């Protein structure tokens, strides 16, 4: 959560708390406040160079760094999993530069940085979900110039976006777009939900948590405040629908979660498992994801170990 940090919170390793300097965090927080006041509106910000390449979550990391405090517990997921390279690297990064406690459990986390998924477990008030966004502009394919796409947002001229859905129905008989499915936020701004599957779109609607979006490459921040309307575009006669699977999760038996297809051998063997590892583990009753406590456990709180 946002806490005022004094400027002398440098770590023993010579980094300022959470890597970014306080002026940068202040600038990003201002952008975040503006973004929260105008849900779905893309606020430009001065993205910094981060010690990882563009496209690996530089925007998300800068947002996380600006909102996280020593008492926070951070969860990072990539494609729903906590144990992928990108997720592990980012978690390790924050343990190092902020000495915070990390967790793999949604219920324990106060800040969750995500790439490609919204956790299956319902979020609650007080939690912050930070999305990594490669391309913030939903109108990019429609208005070739940014000056025009910003006008389209300003005047709420979104007919052309609807045309792309029309094209899908004309060609395939249904709206074929399955990820980065455009949403209308608060009945005003068209927004890209980042490359999450459309399966996750309904979770954004009326969510009690704060949802923040950061694109480092495009230098844009946008946000959905708690309990905000987030409607997926559709047609009256072709309503928005999420993906469904014939199978249930091979591990936990969930019939309602987002499933990944896993190839198990070279003879055509395959199975479907939850993409959200924390959710799957919780359903199985196992407890694989313990909190990892960084070097100094000063900020660690109860519940971080189990």
């Amino acid at each position, binding site marked *: 959560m946002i806490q005022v940090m004094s400027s002398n919170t440098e770590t023993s390793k010579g980094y300022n708390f959470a890597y970014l300097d306080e002026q940068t965090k202040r600038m990003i927080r201002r952008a975040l406040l503006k973004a929260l006041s105008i849900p779905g509106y893309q606020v430009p910000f001065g993205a910094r160079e981060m010690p990882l390449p563009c496209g690996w979550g530089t925007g998300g990391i800068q947002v996380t760094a600006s909102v996280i405090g020593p008492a926070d517990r951070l969860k990072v997921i990539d494609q729903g999993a906590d144990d992928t390279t990108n997720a592990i690297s980012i978690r390790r990064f924050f343990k190092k530069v902020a000495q915070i406690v990390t967790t793999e459990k949604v219920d324990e986390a106060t800040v969750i940085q995500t790439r490609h998924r919204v956790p299956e477990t319902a979020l609650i008030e007080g939690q912050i979900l930070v999305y990594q966004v490669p391309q913030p502009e939903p109108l990019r394919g429609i208005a070739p110039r940014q000056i025009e796409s910003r*006008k389209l947002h300003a005047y709420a001229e979104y*007919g052309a976006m609807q045309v792309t859905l*029309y094209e899908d129905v004309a060609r395939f008989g249904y709206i074929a777009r399955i990820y980065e499915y455009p949403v209308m936020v608060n009945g005003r701004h068209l927004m890209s939900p980042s490359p999450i599957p459309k399966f996750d779109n309904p979770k954004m609607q009326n969510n009690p948590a704060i949802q923040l979006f950061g694109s480092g490459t495009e230098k844009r921040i946008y946000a959905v405040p708690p309990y905000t309307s987030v409607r997926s575009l559709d047609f009256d006669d072709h309503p928005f629908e999420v993906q469904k699977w014939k199978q249930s999760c091979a591990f936990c038996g969930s019939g309602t979660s987002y499933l990944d297809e896993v190839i198990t051998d070279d003879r055509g063997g395959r199975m479907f498992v939850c993409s959200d590892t924390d959710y799957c583990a919780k359903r199985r009753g196992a407890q694989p994801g313990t909190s990892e406590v960084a070097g100094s456990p000063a900020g660690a709180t109860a519940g971080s170990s189990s």
Partner: protein
Amino acid sequence: MTAAAKVATRRILLDVRGVSKSYGGQVGCLDVSFALYPGEVLGIVGESGSGKSTLLACLAGRLAPDTGSIAYDTKERGLVDILSLSEPERRRLARTDWGIVHQNPRDGIRMDVSAGGNIGERPMSIGARHYGKIRAEAHEWLNKVEIDLARTDDKPRTFSGGMQQRLQIARNLVTRPRLVFMDEPTGGLDVSVQAKLLDVLRGLVHELGIAAIIVTHDLAVVRLLADRLMVMQRGRVIEEGLTDQVLDDPHQPYTQLLVSSVLQV
């Protein structure tokens, strides 16, 4: 005679007064005034550089004139100076009550969107959200402009120039605008294709009672489409009147030259 009754009380649709626009020392158009009535088709002819395109750009709100006023009879507020409208208001007007047909169809249609999608854009931009109805309307308009329904889902880049131009017209007229601006609508088309386009345009303009301003250097186009004609030279309107009057009995030296320069076939 119902049509006649409708015309009895005519009010001005577009009232243009003293519009001038220059580019530095270069004159674009000079002190142009006229009134356009609903359902009236006005042709503007003149050679390249005579100021007709500048005038059209001013009228369509794309260019701010240096002096003068352009009042349009809006549905909500009656006659309003379009120069006093905010940009979103003007853009809204341009995609609902107006149509703009560009000389090059590339400027007026989305080449990577199917014909049906092109026609559906304007309805969708003003809130149409029923796919079936949008598609039915697209079909109706493809019929009107004589494009085979089998091409509904094809991209315009696979169309001939004449088909592209007819698609552009359908895309513009689908919201039944009251005023359409056309810049050389037949420019760059084969003569045989022009005839079909003109025929389609004429039928639609009459059927829908659309007022239109057509800028062209092709006198045959205005003879066929325009009720009235303005002849421009060096930024000024030098002669105007009924189209057949101006073409058959031109008074100004330049108009006489223009009319006598047309090759007869």
